[in-house]
């Protein structure tokens, strides 16, 4: 039987999953909304991956021997599925992208609530930056503006490409952008120009804030949910004066990267899809042992405590049952 590896990337907005083989080929993939419930989303991802796996009769050919999780809920889902590798999304994205595009030098990524830049030299990340305090210019920002304009965010790219010019909109802050947007609408600016303006603002905001001080060297790969927006892609190409590559599997890169890392961990243990049908619960407890009042997250599987974290000191460590 051949070996296969599972990777799940649980972001704030979407949850992604892939199963790869030893040649890094994707055997099954899934992308769906997290909808504020990372555990459920991960279960749904597992159900979907399982049915793709079954449909292709892969279960007779492959055995999943390692799994990994990344993204903001990596810890939670990691303990849920018993993942061997639980790693941050920067490393997962760098590994995934350099596996598929070994010559990449700059990775631009704009997700639902965060955005990052990863600089790569000789196939290894050398530097990175992430957005700081606020989520201006990320997918969440575009979604909320789409809602205001009564347009589906998925249509943004296509509409933006039709515009003759981009209306100037400040994307530094969502509040300012909204008032800019309202003003542009009031003065009768065509919708496609406003949408093109929003795309330009997202690219500009990213380059001025996240990528501030970083040297952007070609080849450039752009990924994350926002990379599906052709309008933003074009604005990046215009601003940077170089081609910007969007991988058709760009949205799966984190999940793919963590699956590769699971493979490379060489820590093998049979994985069972049964976890998708178990009951998981989390509970938040406020530790009262000192004045810090840490919020400790406890994870239970079928009523049994399997993991906990969040304590700043050992006083708050919770004993496993």
């Amino acid at each position, binding site marked *: 039987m051949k070996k296969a590896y599972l990777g799940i990337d649980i972001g704030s907005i979407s949850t992604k999953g892939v199963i790869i083989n030893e040649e890094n080929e994707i055997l099954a993939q899934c992308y769906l909304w997290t909808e504020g419930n990372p555990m459920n989303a991960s279960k749904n991802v597992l159900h979907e991956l399982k049915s793709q796996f079954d449909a292709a009769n892969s279960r007779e050919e492959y055995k999943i021997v390692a799994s990994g999780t990344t993204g903001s809920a990596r810890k939670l889902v990691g303990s849920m599925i018993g993942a061997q590798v639980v790693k*941050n*999304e920067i*490393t997962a994205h760098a590994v995934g992208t350099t596996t598929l595009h070994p010559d990449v030098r700059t990775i631009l990524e704009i997700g639902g609530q965060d955005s990052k830049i990863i600089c790569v030299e000789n*196939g*290894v990340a*050398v*530097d990175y930056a992430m957005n700081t305090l606020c989520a201006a210019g990320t997918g969440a920002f575009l979604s909320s503006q789409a809602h205001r304009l009564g347009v589906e965010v998925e249509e943004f790219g296509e509409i933006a490409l039709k515009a003759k010019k981009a209306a100037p909109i400040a994307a530094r802050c969502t509040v300012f952008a909204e008032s800019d947007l309202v003003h542009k609408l009031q003065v009768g600016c065509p919708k496609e120009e406003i949408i093109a303006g929003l795309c330009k603002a997202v690219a500009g905001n990213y380059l001025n804030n996240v990528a501030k001080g970083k040297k952007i060297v070609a080849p450039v790969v752009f990924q994350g949910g926002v990379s599906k927006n052709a309008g933003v892609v074009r604005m990046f190409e215009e601003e940077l004066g170089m081609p910007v590559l969007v991988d058709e599997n760009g949205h799966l890169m984190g999940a793919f990267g963590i699956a590769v890392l699971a493979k490379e961990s060489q820590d093998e243990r049979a994985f069972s899809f049964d976890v998708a049908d178990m009951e998981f619960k989390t509970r938040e407890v406020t530790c009262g042992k000192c004045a*810090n009042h840490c919020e400790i997250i406890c994870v239970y599987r079928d009523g049994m405590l399997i993991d906990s974290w969040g304590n*700043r000191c050992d006083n708050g460590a919770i004993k496993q049952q």
Partner: protein
Amino acid sequence: MIQTIGIPGGLMIHRDGVLWKNFFEQLGFHCVTSRKSDRQILEQGTERAVDETCLPFKMYLGHVMELMGKCDAVFIPRMGGFKTREKMCTRYEALPDLVKNIFRDEQIPVLTVSYDWYDRTTEEKVYLELGDKLGKTKKETKKAYIFAKKQQEAWLKSREKAQNQLMEKEGTKVVLAGHPYVLHDAYMGGELARILEKMGASVLYTDYVDRDSALKKSYDFSRVMPWLINREIIGALMALRKKADGIVLVSAYPCGPDALVNDMLIRRIKDLPVLSLTLDAQSGTAGVETRIESFIDIIKYQKAGGYGTKN
């Protein structure tokens, strides 16, 4: 009559605390310090502060409140700086007034001393003034100051020595660069050191470096920058970077001098990975942990020469 002097456990105590405490004790006073920073101290300080001020100042107010009723006066110096290009930020120029005003109902007795760069004064003169205020003779005060200064220097020297030994060791070394009261505060920078060490990195601090030589070096970086502590940070960074694998710039939100200086640093340090972290009052450390973990990964995989190796 002042017998017990309270020293709030925030802001410059992390830089000059040894000097202050020894000075007062040498003059025969008893000193009390508030406990290590924690969430409760921050919360009570935040409640009294105006929104726009910085996190360390909010923490400081919480520390002042901890000392209420436990001392005869709280020591809050007004430090402007001694030279035009080695000033303190405006927060320090107003510190005793801010505290007196914020706690005007509580009528906190404040012991203070005041100096500015245009006074053309020296540290010794400032302490002589302070001794005079406390009713001590010039002779006693001078003796106490010299003693306290020696203690302070010995304290810094021992930290510097330990850090130099750490620098010669094998393994991943990361410089935490920032204001001492951010780096060493148990609830702010203390967390970062804990996270870094848990990930197997040794931590070097920009304030465990000889201050005079750091200050001197900083003029190679900028001739016109007006802030003393940022100068000390930069000078120390220039010395430490040779032995380090990465630099974490730590700032507490919102710090004016850091906003400007850290931006300059990011643009000018090209030979080492630099991570810029801004701490705010958010209680969760998840965002910070992700950033540090990613940063350490970069350093480790760089050293290993690729992702193919087990980690």
